[in-house]
Structure formats: C-alpha cells, structure tokens
C-alpha cells in the first residue's frame, strides 16, 4: 500500500494517481488537485517552496487512508504530494478516491484534503515580489483558537 501515499519532488501525473484507485467494483473516482494559485488576497505569488518531513508525511497520508476506510469501507484512496519549488499552476497534490457510488467519493475526497491540512507535516513558503513567508495553517472549515490542532485531530 505504501505506493498509494507518496511525497515526491517530481511532477505528478494525475492519470497515474487515478489509475491506482480505478477497479472493477468502483463506479466513481473523485479527484482533488491542488494547484499553485497566482493571487492570494490580492498578493501575487511568484513561486512556492514546499518542505516536508517526508517519512512522517507519508505515514500521515496513509493514516488518512486508514481513517477513510474506517468511515467509507468501500473506498480506495491514493494521495501524492509534491515538494520543492513549484510555479504557478503546477500541481502540488493529487487525491484520488474510488467508491462504488458517487456520493461517497466526494465526501471521502473532501475529508482527505481537510485532514492533509490538519495533520500532514508539509510546509509551504510563498515567494512574492517583495518578500517571502512560511504559511501557517489555512484551514477553511475549522479554526484553532490555540493556533494548533487539538489532540483528537492529530491522532484521528
């Protein structure tokens, strides 16, 4: 299974990640692809640099896969995240989830991206025309008043 949860410093092929989860018993594959956006809150990004604690990040991606199979037993998940220097529109992450029926593929895929942003040790540094900065958590669905995840979020 470890091939299903990868950190790489190379270009990610969407087709390759999708092909890992296509199988006769599934009828739906939901894919989430994160790409480098040029403007965030009006500020222009020139490029990004992603750093990761690679072995732990792969373990945490696999944990997300396990969590998904706990919640959606018929789901099969593959996730690849790229690190290093990425430019505008480059693909940073590809999540693919196959399920027998479509509703679960959406829900499980959404769960995966939210969990990546909670527990996977990957960090993004934005480079702008006038500076650079490591970006803190960017959770859209949840905020941590303490500035960090609660224990139950980390251990899933």
């Amino acid at each position, binding site marked *: 299974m470890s091939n299903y949860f990868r950190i790489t410093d190379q270009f990610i092929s969407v087709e390759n990640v999708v092909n890992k989860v296509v199988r006769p018993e599934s009828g739906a594959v939901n894919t989430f692809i*994160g790409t480098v956006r040029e403007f965030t809150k009006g500020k222009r990004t020139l490029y990004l640099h*992603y*750093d*990761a*604690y690679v*072995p*732990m*990040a792969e*373990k945490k991606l696999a944990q997300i896969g396990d969590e998904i199979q706990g919640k959606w037993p018929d789901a099969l998940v593959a996730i690849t*995240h790229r690190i290093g220097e990425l430019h505008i529109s480059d693909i*940073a*992450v590809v999540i693919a989830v196959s399920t027998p029926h479509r509703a679960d593929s959406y829900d499980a895929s959404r769960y995966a*991206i939210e969990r*990546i*942003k*909670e*527990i*996977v*040790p*990957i*960090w*993004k*540094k934005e480079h702008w025309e006038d500076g650079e900065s*490591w*970006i*803190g*958590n*960017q959770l859209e669905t949840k905020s941590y008043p303490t*500035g*960090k*995840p609660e*224990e139950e979020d*980390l*251990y899933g």
Partner: protein
Amino acid sequence: MVKVLLFAQFQEAAGRESVEIDAAGHPVSHVKSVLKENYGILELDDANVAVNEEYTNMSTELKDGDTVAFIPPVSGG
C-alpha cells in the same frame, strides 16, 4: 543522544536541518527549551511535536536514539 529534526522556519532560524541534544531521560519540553535558548528558534509555542514520526506531547520522556521533530503549523495541500 536524541536527534532533533528542524523544518521550514525552524530550519531557517537555526541554520541547520538537525541537531543532536543530550536529552535522554528528559521530557520533550527540555528539548524545546534548548532549541529556544541555544538555537534561536523562538516560535516553538505554535508547534506540535513528534517523537519517532508520531505526534505526542511535551511531557513525553525521551530515550537514547529517539528522533524528535518540532512541527510548525502545517500548510500542505
């Protein structure tokens, strides 16, 4: 000895990817203090900590050969 891995802003602050600290028998919080005082890493209060690639907390007691990582707020995806 305990190996301490540094990433992202912590790596930049310390100017290195890892340090070795004589912390066996001490809790993780001891490593945190050393990083603050000796390596100029000041933003550790927002960090999580992992020992041997699993999240844990500041009171975990370290043993010889452990690998500690301070995890700044993550921003993958």
